[in-house]
């Protein structure tokens, strides 16, 4: 099996290189045969990497411990779904997963753009760029970090999976996140193809925008799933720790968000052509950087960076990609001039520009804080920790400002807003916000951060609802449809616009959850003998000892608690393979308003007489974040849904001369 997998990878590497040369040469000398040969090679790369991935999955399924990777990441005691999840639990496997999903995406792009059209001139270069990335990954997989390394002697059992991965969140979060980082390669490929071919018109913009939306939602969900996993497994009461690994996956998403906004300036007004190319380039570079950091954890120290085998390769690839992209960019710069000028500061265009400044500002602040420990170590040999307080103080205000822009932007018309227009659009959201805030203050929400945060959320909510209401009313007047039907067909017929607003609502829900849990989290710790209780925010938690269950391969300790009369069981799991690394399962009771979150820290004694140490949190509004994630997916799907055909089509076919007519 090792040989088969290895042959597939090396074959894919060779074919990927061939596809690049063939596609580019085909365009240059105008040979259709070479171009289609390059395309076929890309299909073959997809087939080979799929074969390699299936080989590795099979090796896991049959417990082939002659492979070092299988031996390191699985054991006979593991159930089949876990064994298959072990595929992407280590560095080599997750790089293979990345390469595999990229090859599948490349195949989908080839299939979707198979018909002839104005985008045809772009496609050979798109193939070349995607295969360039693929060649780099297969180079790593074939020669540096191969998952198909054989062991000299076959062990009888494997080491097993890292305990953190036993959770279902960990089974979907990493593949989502890696796929999200991977998928920015596609819009990037279209941008590079536009530069290389000189077709700088609207073809690449429309395609790149759609694929960028796909990448945006996958990476966004990957991040939200990561937060959800951290929340219910890591047991520190929060969901986002501003950890380097989290930050590097957030940065491409932020710059990508700037891209999917500013690309509309080009679509509608022919502006910011060069800027958009630059944005998608930066997003792609950050995605490659993110993949690298996520898979090697190098940001802990300069020294671990130098030790990592894949480090120099990633840096070289990144340097090559940056230099190549910049060269193309400056070569084509004269063709990237704007068709139009900015008409007024009060306009949609200007608010998109401010949006871009803010998103790039946040991304830069996070980037700077994330790499700064490395910088300080390299230039001054000093250890600096950059923890959550830094990111909250620096990124927090900028993120708040992006939220404000989310309210202002959609209310601004393209080109120029008149004073009357501004007044007409802002009067309701602003009045609503003031009334809402007054209600909040009367109800007792007086923390300044909460008032500011919820105030921004109210304003944005008002702005978005106003758009929905006005649209529905207008449609009701025009067509006479009843209101619910008018709303639905409004969304159906303007899916990009109202899908976008739905995504904004989702972001708003995440914002509400973040503000609520940030400001109003309550926490206490207690060590309780059986029968003793602790009270926090109206929850009375009574201890009733522990229960120990020995399951195959894992010992599970349950704290037996009752919360206001109902049972709650936070867990500690000790895996036989990793006894030093217990994993936590938080005892969680969720409502739309708040979560009760109980972590079993320690215990002494056994059975019903045991004494337990608990950390208890009450986290308000956290479930809004997860609901926001679901709405985010829905809104993006609405946006990407193919637009309906125009409602009325003239019948153009002639009736046959001898047709039987129906009297009117």
């Amino acid at each position, binding site marked *: 099996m090792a040989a088969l997998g290895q042959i597939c990878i090396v074959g894919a590497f060779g074919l990927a290189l061939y596809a690049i040369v063939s596609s580019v040469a085909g365009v240059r000398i105008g040979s259709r045969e070479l171009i289609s040969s390059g395309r076929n090679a890309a299909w073959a790369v997809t087939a080979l990497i799929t074969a390699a991935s299936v080989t590795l999955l099979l090796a896991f399924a049959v417990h082939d411990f002659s492979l070092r990777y299988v031996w390191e990441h699985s054991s006979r005691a593991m159930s089949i779904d876990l064994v298959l999840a072990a595929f992407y639990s280590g560095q080599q496997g997750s790089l293979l997963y990345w390469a595999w999903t990229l090859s599948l995406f490349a195949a989908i792009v080839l299939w979707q753009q198979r018909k002839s059209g104005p985008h045809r001139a772009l496609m050979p270069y798109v193939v070349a760029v995607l295969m360039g990335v693929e060649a780099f990954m297969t180079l790593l997989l074939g020669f540096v970090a191969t998952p198909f390394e054989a062991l000299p002697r076959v062990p009888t059992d494997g080491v097993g999976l890292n305990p953190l991965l036993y959770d279902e969140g960990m089974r979907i979060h990493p593949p989502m996140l890696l796929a999200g980082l991977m998928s920015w390669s596609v819009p990037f490929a279209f941008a590079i193809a536009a530069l290389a071919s000189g077709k700088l018109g609207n073809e690449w913009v429309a395609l790149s925008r759609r694929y960028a939306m796909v990448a945006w939602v996958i990476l966004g969900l990957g991040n939200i799933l990561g937060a959800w996993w951290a929340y219910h497994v890591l047991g*520190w*009461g929060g969901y986002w*720790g501003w*950890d*380097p690994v989290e930050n590097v996956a957030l940065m491409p998403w932020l710059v990508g968000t700037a891209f999917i906004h500013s690309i509309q300036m080009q679509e509608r*007004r*022919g502006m910011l052509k060069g800027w958009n190319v630059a944005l998608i380039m930066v997003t792609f570079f950050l995605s490659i950087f993110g993949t690298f950091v996520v898979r090697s954890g190098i940001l*802990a120290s300069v020294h671990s960076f130098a030790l990592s085998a894949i480090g120099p390769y990633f840096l070289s690839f990144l340097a090559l990609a940056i230099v190549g992209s910049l060269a193309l960019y400056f070569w084509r710069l004269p063709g990237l001039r704007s*068709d*139009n*000028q*900015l*008409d007024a*500061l009060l306009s949609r265009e*200007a608010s998109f*520009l*401010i949006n871009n*400044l803010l998103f*790039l*500002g946040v991304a*830069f*602040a996070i980037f*700077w*804080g994330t790499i*700064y420990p490395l*910088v*300080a170590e390299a*230039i*001054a040999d*000093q*250890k*600096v*920790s*950059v*923890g*959550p*307080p*830094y990111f909250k*103080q*620096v990124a927090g205000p*900028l993120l708040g400002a992006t939220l404000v822009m989310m309210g202002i932007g959609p209310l601004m018309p393209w*080109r120029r807003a008149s004073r009357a227009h501004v007044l007409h659009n802002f009067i309701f959201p602003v009045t609503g916000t003031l009334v809402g805030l007054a209600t909040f203050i009367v109800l007792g929400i007086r923390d300044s951060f909460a008032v500011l945060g919820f105030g921004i959320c109210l304003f944005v909510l008002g702005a978005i609802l106003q758009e929905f209401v006005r649209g529905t009313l207008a449609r009701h007047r025009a067509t006479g449809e009843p209101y619910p039907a008018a709303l639905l067909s409004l969304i159906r017929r303007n899916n990009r616009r109202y899908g976008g607003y739905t995504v904004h609502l989702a972001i708003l829900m995440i914002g509400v959850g973040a503000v609520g849990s940030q400001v109003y989290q309550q*926490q*206490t*710790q207690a060590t309780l003998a059986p029968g003793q209780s602790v009270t926090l925010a109206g929850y009375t938690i009574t201890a009733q000892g522990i229960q120990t269950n020995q399951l195959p391969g894992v010992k599970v300790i349950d704290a037996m608690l009752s919360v206001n009369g109902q049972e709650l069981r936070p867990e500690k799991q000790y895996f036989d393979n990793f006894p030093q690394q217990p994993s936590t399962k938080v005892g969680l009771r969720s409502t739309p308003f708040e979560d009760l979150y109980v972590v079993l*820290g320690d215990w002494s004694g056994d059975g019903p007489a045991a004494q337990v140490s608990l950390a208890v949190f009450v986290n308000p509004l956290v479930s809004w974040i997860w609901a926001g994630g679901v709405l985010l997916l829905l809104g993006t799907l609405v946006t990407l849904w193919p637009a309906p055909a125009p409602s009325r089509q003239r019948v153009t076919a002639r009736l046959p001369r001898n047709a039987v007519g129906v009297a009117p």
Partner: protein
Amino acid sequence: VTIVRLLPVVLVGILMLVAPIIARADTLDEGVRRVGLQLQCPVCEGESVADSPSGLAGDMRAVIRARLAAGVPDRQILDEFVASYGDGILTEPPKRGISLGVWIGPLIGVAFGALVLGLLLRTWRRAPTPSMPSSGYPIDTDVANEFSRYREEFRR
């Protein structure tokens, strides 16, 4: 005028009434968490002393608890940890020495971005804007000349 003069007195009065409430709400556990959140666990990656399950973090929490119980203010406890572990122990990088750079970076970045954007907006605004809505297609120079002649005539 008398009301303005009385204002500080009223404020101090309110503070004196409120202060004991604030102080009482602040238990020792909360203090340990408050201080612990500001310290980086030296043996773990990315976890604070308040959250880390490691033994060293537990010992550090015990030290914090003892110092708080002895009435030592937060600032001084943090300084004691900095004295033995260096600035790297703080989760919030101090605004001094090499750590200052991490705070200045984003400020410079955003200020630079705003400056570029501002200059860009200015040049765009200065550029003569076409009074006809542009269709996105370049207009033939002859046609453009024709248009401007009409406009001239219209103004007369």
